[in-house]
């Protein structure tokens, strides 16, 4: 046995020396919107590791991760779909799949990547390995709120027609269900972490519309119709985002449109449970992963400020100004820290979410979206 054991040790040692192991579980990417680059960051070290360039127009860009947290698929505004290998820090694939795109999603099995397009309006679906197009789904309008749903499905909604689509790729050809009557000008949507409820926010009317994806034939469910009734609506300089499904125990919290409020909704009954007045019109209302706090940023010209709301009392417990143009926030997966992109300061600021102490600043070029790899394992992200 002795020679065998020795050989095994030698083989292991050689293997270690030959291939450096790169763990990606605490890495992330930050969109640098003006320069068409992304910054690879390390959450534990609170550091930038590398800049990857050549991704085109990244205003309003977002990305998703492969299930192994090795590849990122970046959705650019110019219709570019770029596949990055974050272990080699290189672009490994890129297609310009439309003239004007707005986000994307990856299927639950990680095999399909879907992109939502304004021009031409619709969704295109690509093979996650090769980036070859496997389906083209024209919707006849600007398509928003694209999410993945369990069962190899994608759900999305059309701004112009108020119609939601469910595209089921568990069968060939994919089965399409359209659901009209979601409301006037849906601007974004989210899916709950369990993959059951799809909620779209409406710009053209006060209210939201939900679909129960566990139902055989989902019907539009009106949520908070006329929530701003009797109140003067304010001009909207920045559409809110519905992302991060801010579930806080039994409730979730959503930004109001045209009002300086966040809205609290019971997750089971989809009825209102409260409102919190905020500093300005919210853009993102994101729950810390444990659900105890909600962090809110605001539209131009009040976009230098963040408020933190306690989800038990629904009251603002902290307010501060990280700097000019706070565009996005991302919690570490267990919520002990939050990373905030401050576009016009060219910085990412990192804060402790309990003490609110600033822990670090990282330089970045006009940073916007921050995406940690832990998103790979969450429905809707």
């Amino acid at each position, binding site marked *: 046995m002795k020679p065998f054991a020795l050989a095994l040790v030698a083989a292991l040692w050689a293997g270690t020396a030959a291939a450096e192991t790169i763990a990606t579980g605490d890495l992330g990417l930050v969109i640098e919107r003006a320069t068409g680059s992304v910054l690879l960051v390390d959450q534990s070290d609170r550091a930038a590791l590398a800049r990857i360039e050549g991704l085109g*127009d990244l*205003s309003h860009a977002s990305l998703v991760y492969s299930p192994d947290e090795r590849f990122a698929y970046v959705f650019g505004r110019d219709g570019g779909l770029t596949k990055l290998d974050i272990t080699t820090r290189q672009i490994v694939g890129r297609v310009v799949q439309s003239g004007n795109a*707005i986000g994307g999603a990856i299927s639950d099995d990680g095999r399909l990547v879907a992109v939502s397009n*304004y021009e031409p309006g619709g969704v295109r679906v690509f093979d996650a390995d090769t980036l070859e197009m496997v389906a083209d789904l024209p919707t006849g309008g600007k398509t928003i709120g694209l999410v993945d749903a369990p069962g190899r499905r994608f759900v999305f909604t059309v701004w112009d027609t108020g119609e939601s689509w469910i595209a089921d790729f568990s069968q060939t050809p994919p089965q399409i269900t359209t659901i009209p009557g979601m409301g006037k000008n849906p601007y974004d949507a989210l899916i709950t972490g369990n993959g059951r409820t799809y909620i779209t926010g409406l710009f053209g009317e006060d209210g939201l519309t939900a679909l129960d994806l566990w139902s055989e034939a989902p019907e539009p469910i009106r949520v908070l119709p006329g929530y701003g009734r009797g109140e003067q609506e304010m001009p909207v*300089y920045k559409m809110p985002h519905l992302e991060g499904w801010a579930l806080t125990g039994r409730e979730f919290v959503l930004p109001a449109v045209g009002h300086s409020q966040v809205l609290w909704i019971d997750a089971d009954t989809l009825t209102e449970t409260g409102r919190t007045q905020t500093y300005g019109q919210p853009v993102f209302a994101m729950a810390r992963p444990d659900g105890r706090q909600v962090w809110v940023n605001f539209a*131009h010209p009040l976009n230098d400020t963040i408020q933190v709301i306690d989800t038990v009392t629904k009251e603002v417990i902290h307010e501060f100004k990280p700097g000019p*143009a706070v565009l996005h926030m991302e919690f570490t997966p267990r919520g002990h820290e939050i990373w905030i992109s401050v576009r016009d300061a060219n910085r990412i600021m990192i804060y402790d979410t309990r003490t609110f102490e600033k822990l670090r600043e990282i330089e970045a070029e006009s940073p916007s979206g921050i995406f940690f790899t832990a998103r790979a394992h969450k429905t809707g992200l």
Partner: protein
Amino acid sequence: MDDVPLIRTQKPDRSAPALALTMLFLATTAFAADAIDPAALKRLVQQDCGSCHGLTLKGGLGPDLRAESLQHYDPEVLTSVILDGIPDTAMPPWRPLMTEEEAEWIARYLQNPEGK
């Protein structure tokens, strides 16, 4: 000082740079509310108009705002759209956030970005 018609873009007199700089500073302070700041307005167009119309203004949720797409509009029409928005669309009125002069500057800048 009030009648000195100085705007920020004016170049200081080479023969008296210190004095010109001082006047420029005073004027900027005194007329901060009225002064046109091209760099700030360009940034606003790119970043804030860009959030709906795209960073390169080629369109997004809102339409294409590139010069070639806007040539046939009267600058006054564009100015009033900027100031008052378009009802029943996502285009908000920007009047609460800028002066008429600034809106007019933006309208002309959109139609002729090279000229500004």
